[in-house]
Every structure is written in C-alpha cells, then in structure tokens.
C-alpha cells in the first residue's frame, strides 16, 4: 500500500448499488477522496475507466453469474488488496438468505420459466470470498460513511483500518436504548457486527442484522430464547438468515440439525 495516491478500483456485482452510492454520498469528502487517490475505475461515478494494476479493489455485491465470477477473478489477479464492501460482498446479502436450502433452481424457474437468457449462466448468489481471497471486510447494508471513510483514510495513509468486531449491542448500549431482546422481542443486535451506531434500536426498532454476522456470536442461544418467547422456528431462522449469508446459513444448519435430533 503506497502512502501517496493509491490506485483504486470500485466494482459492483449483484446488489443494490447502495455501497457505491454511499461512496458518492460522502459529499463533504468526495472531492478530497478523488484527490487523495487515483480512482482508476468506478463505473457508477465516471466514464473514463482504465483497468490495470490496482493497489486496492473495492468490491460491492455478491456473485451470481459465471460472467461475474470471471470478472471477479480477473480483478483479484491485478489487485494488491481486495476489500469487500457491503453485506452482499462480505456475506452474500439478502439474495443469499436461502443458501443451504437448495431452493434456487425452483425459484429461478418460477421467475423466468423456461425462457432462455443468453447472457450468462446464473447461480445462487454467494459472497465474494467463496471464490477469491479477501483481505478486508467492510460490511453494512449499505456501508456506513464513517466506517468506510475511516478505513479508506487509513489505507491512504498507509495504515491499517480498524473496524469494530463487537456486536451491535455495544453501540446500542452507548446510545442507551431499552433492550428490545430483553423485552422478549426479536432483535438481531447480538448476532450482528457493530459499526452502524445501532441505528435501528435507537428508533425503537429491532436490528434486522444488516451488517451481517459478527465475529463471535451465539445464534443457537438467541434461537432458544426466542422460541421460549413464543416465536415460530421458521420465523426466527428467516430473520437470522435475512442478512446472515453463508456464515449464518452454516450456524443455523448446525442447530437445526441438533434440534431435529432432539
């Protein structure tokens, strides 16, 4: 990582373009950002895009077609550092909430019937680290301006970004919200990586988990708790998997199996 003007590329795959949009939403820093870095490719923001060697590639979105996969690998080859931005790239995003349930073909048929779509073969969306090595993750649906800029400014300075690993509850307590989970209702806070500032609980709403799973979570305990509180199994699992992607799919499969045995 060079200290001066790192060469940067921003790429979008399957997702809502929200993370790229968040970059454009850094109105106050945008001009400096373009000044401090050499943005070689950022299709959503500009049209003179030159590919080639990159210091940092920011990847948004999950991978769901052969075409994308090819492109992702090609970008990886010419990037020193690859950073997944947004929950889709980091974990798969909402489009991979049914990972592990083998429902993709069925759903695909329902939507497209037997119509032939020539451009590329599609498959169930997966996070980018299912295919390439990822050096850093900046999750969020969409990413948080401050968290993203905090990381980028460090990269530009030749330093290492620091992102909170703790769950949303940490920031939720800083905001001093009454705990939703304590009151017996679902809240994804304990399962979800902090970084957003606990926006949702601060509005009296449960965290829906949009930052994706945190480093060290106890999904089965929350599952048991909510069952005790009268939630249906399917509903809890649906809620957990909404933004939980590949990691949560695995955890849920584990305690699902345990439950089936018991």
């Amino acid at each position, binding site marked *: 990582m060079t200290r001066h003007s790192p060469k940067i590329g921003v790429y979008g795959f399957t997702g809502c373009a929200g993370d790229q949009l968040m970059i454009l939403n850094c109105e106050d820093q945008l001009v400096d950002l373009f000044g401090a870095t050499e943005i070689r490719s950022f299709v959503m923001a500009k049209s003179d895009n030159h590919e080639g060697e990159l210091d940092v590639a920011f990847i948004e979105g999950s991978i769901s077609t052969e075409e994308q996969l090819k492109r992702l690998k090609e970008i990886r080859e010419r990037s020193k550092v690859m950073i997944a931005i947004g929950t889709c790239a980091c974990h798969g995003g909402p489009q991979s909430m049914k990972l592990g349930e083998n429902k993709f073909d069925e759903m695909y048929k329902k939507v497209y019937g037997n119509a032939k779509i020539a451009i590329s073969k599609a498959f169930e969306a997966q996070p980018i680290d299912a295919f390439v090595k990822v050096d850093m993750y900046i999750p969020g649906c969409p990413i948080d301006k401050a968290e993203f800029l905090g990381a980028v400014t*460090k990269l530009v*300075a*030749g*330093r*290492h970004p*620091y992102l909170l690993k703790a769950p949303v509850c940490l920031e939720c307590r800083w905001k001093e919200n009454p705990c939703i989970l304590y009151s017996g209702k679902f809240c994804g806070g304990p399962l979800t990586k902090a970084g957003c500032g606990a926006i949702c609980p601060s509005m009296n709403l449960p965290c829906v988990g949009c930052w994706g799973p945190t480093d060290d979570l106890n999904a089965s305990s929350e599952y048991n708790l909510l069952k005790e509180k009268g939630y249906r199994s399917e509903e809890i699992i649906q809620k957990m998997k909404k933004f939980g992607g590949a990691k949560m799919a695995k955890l849920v499969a584990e305690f699902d199996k345990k439950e089936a045995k018991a």
Partner: protein
Amino acid sequence: MKKMCVVLDEREVQDNPFKPEMFRIVRRYPLTSDVNFFQARPMDVDEALKFNYLPGQFIMLSVVGEGEAPFCISSSPTRPGLLEFCIRNVGTLTSSLSNLKENQTIGIRGPYGNGFPMDKLEGKDIMIVAGGLGVAPLRSLLLNILDDRDKFGKVTYMYGARTPELMLFRDEFMRFKERDDINCLLAVEKDESGTWKDKFGMVTSLFKDLGPIDAKNTVAVVCGPPVMYKFVMEHVVKLGIPKHQILMTLERRMKCGIGKCGHCAIEYLYTCIDGPVFSWWDVLHMKELIGRGASDKTFA
C-alpha cells in the same frame, strides 16, 4: 465519616500519563526475517539521559496514525541515552513499525510495569532461560548484570532457538561464550545451513549441561512463548529453586499500560502494573496467568 470526597481539586495536577513523547529512530535493522531491532531516543537530547528504567519494564509505543502497543525494553539502563527494542512483525502496528525508516519518529510513553527486582537479585546466582522473543526483556537484564557484574553471583544464560537464523542477537551471545564470568549455553533445534557449531535441541535440553547449582541462592528468570513455560518450569522446579525465586514475564493485550483499560487484568492483578514480571508462585495460585482458563485443567 472517613474522608471528604471530591478533594481532587487540591491534588497536584500530574502530567497526562497517556501522552506519548516523540522519539527518533536512530538505528533499525532486521534481526531475523520477521524481527526488527530498533534504537530510539527522545527528540530532546536532555530528556534522553533522564529516561530511567528497570530491566523487564516496558513502554507503550505509538506509530502515528496506527495506534499503540506495549514492548519490552531490550537495552540496559546501565547504558543510558538510547532505548533498544526487538520487535516481531505480527500485526497491524508492528508491520507499520517495520516500514518506518531511520530518523522517522515514534511516540513512546513509560516505562511501565514492575520490571525485575534488581535490588533483590543482588548477591544471588542468576539463571536466565530464554526462548524465542523472550530474549527481548532478558537481554536487558543480562546486559545490566554484566555491566554490574560484581553485584551478582554465578550467572547462567540459556537460550534456545529453532534455527541459527532465528537466534536473535546471535553474534552478541556468541561473544558471551568466550567470557568466563558467565555460563552461556545456546542451542538450536535444527540447522539446514550447516553453520551451527554448538549444541542441538530444545532449550530444556541445556539443563543437563548446567553443572551443580546452589538452588536456594538462585533466582531463575524465564521468558518465552506460553507453551515453553510448562516444560521449562518442570526442569527449574526440579533443580530445587524456590517457587517465589522463579520469575517470568507475561504478555497480555494492553491498551493503556497503566491499569486503566482492563485488558490485561487477571483476577485482581493487572499485568501492566502488577507485572509483567511474576513469580511461579503467583502463577500457581493465579491460574489464568498462563493457563487458558476454564477449559484448561493444567492447574486444576
């Protein structure tokens, strides 16, 4: 009523203990592929001579824009003016540090920690057992002892490294072998380059070459990776050295170095202010000092 509260206003305002002072890197070179040697001194030369410390103490080192981490001082207080460190490149701060060049600045505050009780070591036979990066604090102790040689009894130094290339300060220690006021025992586990002319094996294998010791008058000082302690301690205890005369330095995550951030707490002790030097007796009844907690039955 015991005491009035909030009499803080009357207290003398101390300097901000969290504030790093800027130091200049004077020399810097690699000791092995991932360990760097650093010499640094305060920007202000007068300050340099005032910086006083004990072997075994550590400082909090800041790399601008990266953060802070604790490192033992490897130089000896008997040679004031310059601070020396040997630092392994393992993570974020250490890798940024390894990119710094001579004449660039770092922040330093300290020294912190109890350090080795030098006054209590006087008159004692000293046995030093080092493994891997454990050399960092032990070199400070060793150099200090050698500079004040007549204050101490017999001195034994044992150091094991995996290969000759991984032996830190190898040339320096090889020269000690030629001195007769210190018994310097070095071993490597393997040597692919074929340059090693000395003993082979783990550091524990050196115990058989120790010769007779006066256990009751010996202080053993051990430092190395956590796994090393278990094996080395067995040998040291077998020699009959009292448990409170076996010292070791420990590593914990630290964010402040002065007992505020809590990270290094073990029961009621803080590694930073109550340590990092502990005795084997401390360890035996404070299981978490080197054990790994509830799952670890070593000390049960």
